[in-house]
């Protein structure tokens, strides 16, 4: 069986709900920054679009759509403090084990075993279902990139949940 066709299914779903057809991003080319360092010497940061936030300390995401904010998650976070605000994927398992979509405990272990140089002090979570692509590309993404550079991050590991 071929992988689930989420684009076709979402298109049909939107149409059935009376929404105009969603214009999926179609990029003909991909940007590319060569990776030239040794991983064991790199500072790596993690990002998930799973809608995770620190319970009682950070505001939850708008679980529906178009939340252009991000949360900064410190590397030493106790994962039991993480909660998820996101209505568009089944996070029953990720609620119990956030590593399903934000594997920060595994990254701490990779740092401990020397597989990566270091996990960045601050890691990032955002929401999916952002239909405001221009604001995402021109505002949120550059701000996160600026912070990553300031923190001396060498590699960005992305988990679109």
């Amino acid at each position, binding site marked *: 069986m071929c992988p689930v066709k989420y684009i076709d299914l979402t298109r049909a779903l939107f149409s059935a709900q009376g929404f105009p057809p969603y214009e999926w991003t179609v990029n003909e080319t991909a940007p590319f920054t060569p990776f030239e360092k040794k991983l064991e010497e790199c500072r790596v940061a993690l990002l998930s679009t799973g809608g995770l936030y620190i319970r009682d300390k950070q505001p939850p995401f708008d679980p529906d759509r178009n939340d252009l904010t991000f949360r900064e998650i410190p590397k030493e976070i106790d994962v039991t403090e993480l909660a998820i605000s996101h209505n568009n994927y089944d996070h029953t398992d990720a609620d119990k084990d956030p*590593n399903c979509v934000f594997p920060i405990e595994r990254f701490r272990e990779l740092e401990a075993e020397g597989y990566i140089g270091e996990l960045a002090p601050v890691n990032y979570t955002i929401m999916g279902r952002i239909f405001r692509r221009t604001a995402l590309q021109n505002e949120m993404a550059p701000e996160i990139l600026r912070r990553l550079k300031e923190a001396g991050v060498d590699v960005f590991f992305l988990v679109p949940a």
Partner: protein
Amino acid sequence: MPTISVSSARDVTESVKPPRSVFVNFPLGHTTGKAFDRELQMKIIKDAFDALRSINEPGTIIDLPYRWEDGDESWETEVERQMTGA
């Protein structure tokens, strides 16, 4: 900034074309592995880092071999059923 992406929606990834991706054919919400399966989570992450080092062609997607349930892909049928309301 070099990036590596782990995705569970192959068609969306093909359309968006991130610089480098690995594809894990699991139900959404388990992109980096099943709950409390430390070994599987670690394998997926290390496969992604291998892809970070090996991919030279922008937009490449590498399909990882993991299966949600051996010989049973009924979760895919279930997702389609839910999304079409059938």
